[in-house]
């Protein structure tokens, strides 16, 4: 029944896209400035190194470091520094209609080295283009536009790293494009078949269902069950600005089939996400919400979540925006973010009590930008963790950091 509904929805979406594609092809009157705006603001084609492209290859990246002063339940480990990320971008405009972009990430020095993106885009027309390779799964806006210098708070949103396991890079193939239902409105879409997440979703972490534990390097070689997952996002850029996105990621995550033999039941993981970003005068709002549904073996229910959800909401206010201290265009932004994640939305059958396992966080930050590409950030975050039995553990973190594109 679920499969039928999903297939029906996908078919419906496809038909609608075809209709919109035809409408777009007939319409030549879309606003030029809208056409020149990248499909994903802050995404892989909205990076400063590309806009300065001279030849047919450009190299860029970003670097990020910060300090941490954490205190949990009154216990602190002192001050430490963290080499968070050093990411290198390589972009090549192979021809007018064939582009390649890649990103290699070094996290915590060389503790984790990952090929985050390595894809080829074949540009057919505005409405439909082909993309293949290691791509950022379009589940939630943060996953496809997460470069640190773009953000005014050092830590990434919880929902975007715990429910949506950003950065989620997967190997796959699919389509993307933009449609213009009216002159001033735009719809962009991305849809890909990918290898999907793996066995680690359930069992990969002893702390319970952790979707991020389903990421696996072996998935860059082959699908663990031979049935690709599907992921896609539809985003609206309305005439009054901003962006509203709806996205999904669904597929079987477990190795239910090995060498053709069925060794387990199929277990599906589905994530839906809603994201928004808008700007009004000096105020910028953004946020993301996600829900996940996970098929869990009967013997592991309660200990491993079948439902998870979370959200973040952020408001940023630009306090200053002028030339300061020898810099031609500086800005100072104050930002407030609320994070919430419920890792296990369910009930203990033994007591009929809600299962805890949740995390809340409130972050206050200041971000000074000597240039648009560089952010010096100070933040204070207070977090409230609850274990499965609703025991609370309070913590806080003061961070000072820097992130810049290069």
């Amino acid at each position, binding site marked *: 029944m679920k499969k039928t509904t999903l297939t029906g929805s996908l078919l419906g979406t496809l038909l609608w896209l075809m209709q919109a594609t035809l409408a777009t092809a007939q319409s030549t009157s879309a606003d030029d400035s809208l056409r020149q705006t990248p499909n994903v603001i802050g995404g892989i084609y909205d990076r400063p190194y590309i806009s300065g492209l001279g030849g047919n290859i450009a190299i860029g990246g970003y670097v990020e470091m910060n300090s941490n002063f954490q205190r949990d339940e*009154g216990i602190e480990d002192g001050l430490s520094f963290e080499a968070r990320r050093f990411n290198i971008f390589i972009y090549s405009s192979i021809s007018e209609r064939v582009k390649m972009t890649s990103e290699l990430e070094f996290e915590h020095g060389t503790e984790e080295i990952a090929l985050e993106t390595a894809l080829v885009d074949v540009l057919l027309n505005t409405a439909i283009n082909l993309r293949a390779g290691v791509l950022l799964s379009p589940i939630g806006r943060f996953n496809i536009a997460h470069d640190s210098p773009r953000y005014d708070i050092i830590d990434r949103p919880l929902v975007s790293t715990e429910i949506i396991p950003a950065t989620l890079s997967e190997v796959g193939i699919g389509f993307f494009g933009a449609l213009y239902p009216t002159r001033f409105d735009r719809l962009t879409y991305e849809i890909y078949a990918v290898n999907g997440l793996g066995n680690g979703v359930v069992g*990969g972490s*002893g702390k319970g269902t952790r979707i991020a534990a389903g990421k696996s390097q072996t998935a860059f070689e082959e699908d663990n069950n031979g049935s690709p997952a599907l992921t896609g996002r539809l985003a609206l850029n309305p005439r009054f600005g901003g962006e509203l996105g709806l996205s999904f990621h669904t597929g079987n995550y477990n190795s239910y089939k090995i060498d053709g033999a069925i060794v387990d039941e199929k277990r599906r993981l589905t994530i839906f996400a809603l994201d928004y970003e808008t700007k009004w005068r000096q105020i910028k709002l953004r946020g993301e919400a996600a829900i996940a549904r996970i098929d869990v*073996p009967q*013997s592991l229910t309660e200990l491993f979540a079948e439902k998870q959800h979370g959200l973040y909401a952020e408001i940023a206010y630009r306090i*200053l925006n002028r030339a300061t201290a020898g810099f031609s265009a500086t800005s100072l932004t104050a930002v407030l973010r609320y994070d919430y994640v419920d890792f296990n939305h369910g009930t203990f059958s033994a007591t009929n009590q809600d299962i805890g396992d949740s995390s809340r966080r409130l972050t206050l930050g200041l971000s000074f930008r000597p240039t648009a590409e560089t952010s010096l950030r100070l933040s204070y975050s207070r977090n409230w963790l609850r274990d499965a*039995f609703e*025991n609370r553990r309070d913590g806080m973190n003061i961070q000072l950091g820097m992130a810049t594109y290069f």
Partner: protein
Amino acid sequence: MRHQQTLIRWYAGLALLGSLGCDSLVTDPPQDNQIFDAPLDGLTAAQLKAHLDGDEAFGEAFNTATGLGPVFNQTACVNCHPDEGRGHPSTNLTRFGRATADGFDYMLEFGGPQLQDRSIPGYPAEQLPFEATGISVRGGPIAVGLGLIEAIPDETILTNEDPNDANGDGISGRANFVPAPEWLELSPDKIIRDGMYLGRFGRKATAINLLQQTVSAYKADMGVTTDFDPVEIFNPAVGNTVGDNVPDPEVSAETVRNVVIYLQTLREPLRRNENAPEVLAGKQLFTTIGCASCHLPEMQTGPSAIRQLAFKPVRLYSDLLLHDMGPQLADHYPEGQASGTEWRTAPLWGLGIVDNLLGGTPFYLHDGSTSDLTEVIDLHMGEAAGARSRFFELAETDQMSLIAFLKSL
């Protein structure tokens, strides 16, 4: 000028937020008498380091890559002992078997004696066989003060034995002597009866020391093998002896020993309102009506390699002996010399703060089946029937005093 005013407003806002209380902004440590997981006072730096290493191992959540399963009950020690307190009913484990004409069958062919009702994905969990007649459901006990309990000499515990009720007080505590596994390291001063050793840990006193308790919890509760006991458990119904594909042993002796040291050096729970008049009155009643006959207020440790444990009073409110608790608490599951109606006297220390670590709800008794101390007392039968009757004969205010005393422990 306008920008400066804006900045001033922001700073004023931040200052106001700060004034709400620096402590709440940077998080306060909880009060010492409201928590379980604190080390013994006076540990040396080296002991404290081992304690912290053990703490980390105690908190480790096993997964499919680190040796969890193939069958198991929980993924981490802390799941059954959250913040080193007692377990939530959702983490109860089940032991089972069946009474036979010859005694008791632990039903090994069905995965007994412990039901591992969880399994790694793709592997079947064990099922409780319908033939089982003795089914014992148990929660994790408080995991602190155990070093002190371990350091009580055998002789001290056996002094209180009265298996034939020679003194005629209706209470006939007896020790549970159990066989020691080959790998178990035992001190030479252990008393041996018929080749068996005094058990003192576990709901029926089946573990001789903390090393045995720890190794068996790794294996039976988490499906994790150790250097001490490297043989994995499997679901017999599967018919083969492969499962998690992680080479055995999955945990080193070093890690096990760190956990043992951690358990040994967790201090006993601290009391609250100890000198309040109501509490003092309840303490007196506790002895007067006979509760203290089994819930012995204090014992003494003997020598210990850990100086902080040697020759110390242990106010655990238990004699660590087996007592018949009557039909209402019977699990019909014998273990060692403990019958299906006998339980080791549960230590009462920490009773007043168990709810702090269970989200606000105290789950009392071996299976966490009630949150009402009066109901707990009401379920005491067998050897405790006299004390129970005397409790319910008390005036309501006296009953409340006794409950207040229990909550001060």
